[in-house]
């Protein structure tokens, strides 16, 4: 059969059309890099998140939603039944309910929900629950005053029967009990709840305000004290109050409390790295006051090649800058678990915990050092060190846990070690401990559970564990992060609260006294991988602590490309903006927040616009820039950059005496600029007129 010419043409056209249609479909461009990954999520229960907060079950969220839905319809019985299901759930779970995505304890949300009921709702609630609440109060009053049993009963009223007729006296009594136990923050919260939610209460307002002011003044809670003081002075100065069995005016009490608050020393907690005055970098041709080299040139070359020589790419140990702290006499260094102290004036080695001439050799033999997990804090002549037993590492025990130890700063003697304390022996300490008065707040992973992140409070004197709080779960086991930098939480404290930046996708506020989670925030961050491939190249990651300034909390996670802010007083989410993944917070002033990393940048706090950006060499992620009154200082592999804070322009470059290093941290004392690199600790004179003596140069071999 012959095919006609036209039929052949038609067949060809059809084929051509089909081919054209296929070509028009979206496809993968072969030359394009495709990063396949789950979308970033801040859903509380999303298992794909890099860090999962201790969330309530989905049913709790649904029950809360049901409560609001029934309340809107006036179906009070159903509403309160739903609420009871929430109250029956685990009290430590978090639920999305705060403004802007903050996660709050479900108990707090219940109180907020009850406080927000319309008058008819509150009446209905009292109708249902007043009798139960009165019975609980009678039970509590039958217990010994201040006992755990009394507090438990009162707490049930405060949490579960928040708007009943007896809630105000129960909260008042509970506040008194907490105050007697020293849990000041909880006490203030109880008294404040009466002021906020029970204005009809018979308890005099002035009395509650004086109690709050008293607690705040003694605990150094400046914001709470200021708020109470203002109301007392403006409205209740002449009101009579009962204090210590005596009747006097609220104004008289306040006068004494002002003196108490003024006498209380301001907590020296890290709030960024701001030093008030600018420093005068030494002249270009000046010599250092002293330099202490930790590694010879050969050892330095060996450390730099770790990982690369085995095809794993750069390991964190090859960019390791040892944690270093300074007091008025000495410089203290934690060199991979080898502690030593140098005289701050002469650089002379004063003491050391062990010889460390062979650290480079040990590092090469076993490369799983988790260098980023070593840390050091100093307070009142005591060092708190996080380190691991180097002998265990050398014997091929890659997952030997990190310990917390208290060390006498004067002579290096270890006072206690968590290894030997039953309460702390099973913890793998991570992050840098934060000293708060007589206690230290630390973070830790459960031994053999490298995904479960906790916060601990430890009494510095004897290492007693005061509380532990489960913060959440890492998706990646942090103890298996052999080839990439693991997440080390960073802490900052303010006003009786501790803020824990997990550097893994979440930040939490804890009560410093009890460890209770007040709220939490989940942010976008990458999920770290435990994979490795031959010759892999790593991006340099930095990790800085969160920063509190002007009532705002600023934070930027290690694997996140977002700078976040939270208004602390209202506990509401502020602004966020994109930044480089390698960025880290350096400090703030009245108008700008300054970031470090591979670029020094200044961001306007009001508009969040980028004001300026200055590219700087970044060879180690353990760099610590310094912010002063009008300058930023960055210690890099090319020397110390002095940057004008207003314009970002390079004012001066000081090469220094450590140019073979990768850069690192800058510390300032009244008479010296101290740089700490992966190779050496170097002190330079700050005064321009001071003539440098012959350089004191010490090294490992001494």
């Amino acid at each position, binding site marked *: 059969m012959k095919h006609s010419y036209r039929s052949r043409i038609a067949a060809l056209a059809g084929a051509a059309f089909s081919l054209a249609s296929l070509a028009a479909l979206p496809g993968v461009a072969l030359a394009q*890099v495709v990063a396949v990954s789950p979308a970033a999520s801040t859903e509380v229960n999303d298992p794909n998140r890099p860090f999962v907060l201790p969330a309530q079950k989905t049913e709790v969220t649904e029950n809360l939603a049901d409560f609001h839905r029934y309340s809107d319809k006036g179906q009070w019985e159903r509403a309160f039944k739903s609420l009871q299901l929430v109250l029956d759930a685990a009290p430590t779970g978090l639920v999305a309910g705060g403004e802007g995505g903050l996660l709050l304890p479900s108990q707090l949300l219940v109180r907020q929900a009850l406080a927000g009921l319309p008058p008819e709702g509150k009446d209905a609630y009292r109708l249902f629950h007043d009798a139960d609440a009165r019975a609980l109060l009678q039970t509590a009053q039958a217990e010994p005053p201040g006992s755990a049993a009394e507090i438990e009963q009162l707490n049930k009223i405060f949490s579960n029967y928040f708007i009943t007729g007896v809630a105000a006296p129960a909260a008042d009594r509970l506040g008194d009990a907490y105050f007697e136990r020293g849990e000041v923050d909880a006490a203030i919260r109880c008294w404040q709840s009466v002021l906020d939610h029970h204005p009809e209460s018979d308890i005099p307002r002035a009395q509650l305000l004086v109690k709050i002011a008293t607690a705040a003044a003694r605990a150094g809670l400046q914001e709470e004290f200021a708020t109470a003081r203002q109301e007392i002075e403006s409205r209740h100065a002449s009101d009579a109050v009962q204090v210590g069995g005596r009747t006097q005016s609220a104004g008289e009490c306040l006068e004494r409390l002002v003196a108490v608050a003024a006498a209380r020393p301001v907590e020296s907690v890290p709030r960024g790295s701001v030093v008030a005055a600018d420093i005068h970098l030494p002249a270009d041709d000046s010599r250092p006051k002293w330099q202490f080299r930790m590694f010879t040139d050969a050892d330095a070359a060996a450390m730099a090649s770790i990982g690369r020589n085995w095809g794993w790419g750069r390991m964190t140990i090859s960019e390791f800058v040892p944690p270093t702290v300074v007091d008025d006499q000495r410089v203290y260094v934690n060199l991979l678990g080898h502690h030593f102290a140098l005289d701050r004036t002469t650089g002379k080695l004063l003491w050391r915990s062990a010889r460390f001439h062979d650290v480079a050799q040990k590092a090469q033999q076993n490369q799983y050092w988790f260098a980023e997990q070593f840390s050091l804090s100093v307070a009142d002549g005591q060092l708190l060190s996080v380190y691991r037993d180097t002998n265990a590492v050398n014997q091929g025990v890659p997952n030997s846990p990190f310990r917390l130890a208290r060390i006498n700063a004067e002579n290096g003697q270890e006072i206690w070690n968590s290894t030997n304390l039953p309460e702390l022996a099973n913890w793998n300490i991570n992050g840098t401990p934060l000293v708060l008065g007589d206690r230290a707040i630390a973070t830790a992973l459960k031994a053999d559970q490298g995904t479960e992140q906790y916060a601990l409070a430890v009494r510095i004197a004897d290492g007693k564990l005061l509380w532990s709080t489960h913060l959440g779960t890492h998706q990646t086991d942090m103890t298996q992060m052999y080839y990439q930098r693991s997440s080390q939480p960073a802490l900052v404290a303010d006003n009786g609260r501790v803020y824990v930046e997990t550097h893994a996708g979440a930040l939490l506020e804890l009560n410093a006294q009890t460890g209770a989670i007040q709220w939490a925030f989940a942010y*976008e961050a990458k999920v770290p*991988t435990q994979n490795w491939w031959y010759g892999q190249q790593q991006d340099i990651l930095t990790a800085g602590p969160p920063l509190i300034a002007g009532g705002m909390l600023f934070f930027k996670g290690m694997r996140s490309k977002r700078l976040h802010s939270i208004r602390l007083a209202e506990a509401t989410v502020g602004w966020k903006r994109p930044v480089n993944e390698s960025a880290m917070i350096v400090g703030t002033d009245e108008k700008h927040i300054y970031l470090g990393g591979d670029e020094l940048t200044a961001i306007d706090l009001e508009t969040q616009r*980028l004001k300026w950006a200055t590219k700087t060499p970044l060879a180690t992620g353990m760099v610590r820039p310094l912010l002063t009154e009008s300058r930023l200082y960055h210690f890099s592999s090319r020397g110390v950059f002095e940057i004008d804070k207003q314009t970002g322009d*390079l004012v001066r470059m000081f090469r220094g005496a450590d140019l073979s290093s990768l850069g690192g941290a800058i510390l300032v004392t009244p008479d010296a600029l101290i740089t700490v690199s992966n190779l050496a600790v170097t002190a330079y004179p700050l005064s321009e007129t001071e003539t440098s003596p012959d350089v004191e140069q010490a090294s490992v071999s001494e």
Partner: protein
Amino acid sequence: MKLPTRLSTAILAYCAAACALVGAASAADEAGITVTGTGEALARPNRVELDLAVAGTAELTGDAIVKYNDLLRRTTDAFEALELDGLAVEQRSLEFTRGGAGGNAALQAAMAGVDAGAAVKPEVGISRSLRVVLSGIDKLPEDELMETIGRLLDTAQDAGANVSGSSTDSLMAQLNGISTAPASVATFVAEHAEVTREQAYQRAFDAAESRAKRLAALSGGTLGEVVSIEETPVEAGEEDDEGVQAQMMKAIYGIGGQADEDGRLTSNKWGDIPVRVSLRVRFALYDSGERSSGRGP
């Protein structure tokens, strides 16, 4: 169908004539002396160039613009502050890009088929290439030249600019699977090299002629006029001190030193830049008698 006899005969005659002509031409081609002459002349570089790149990359376009502008300003200001005679900064191409910004780790993860982590958000990039030119280097002593180039490199790196290495070196390193091979960062340029080229050509021709004369003398003939002349390509601007492998790779992939546009000669090494010319010349060759009888030229 059988062709007519006359047509066949004509065709045969035509073919025979054509063969004769070709043969005559071949014979003519082979007459004379064909020689190759190579000439070399040296050009002294009079300027050095550093190729830099300044770039701003960010998720927000506004941020990228701020970063780019700041870096460009600081880089140009830094070079101006050196106050060097003969120093100029030329702004060249401007490029806008938009793409994923996973960095080294994400790129390698993707190539290895490994989950790279959270979704990569595209970033805007603005980059400009700069050329820092220092003229008059032929008048500088070598140690002063070294110090000056060092200052230029330090200035560029301190300002945050990216110093580009030789594209040839970089490509060769990639072909050899080396990711961190050192690359030349300075390009030495000899401008207005026409005179040098003229010298090279003249020397190449003189060499060819000299060789031809020698051959003519050996054959007992007399060298005649130039019948044809052909230039054979020779690599210019680079010394032939590379290995065989490198030369093969360059030949295969078309990489390598070429005389630059506008008559410039460039080299990654400081020193006189050789210009080589190779000519293939065919001279006529006459018997001594032919010449004297007047039948020659």
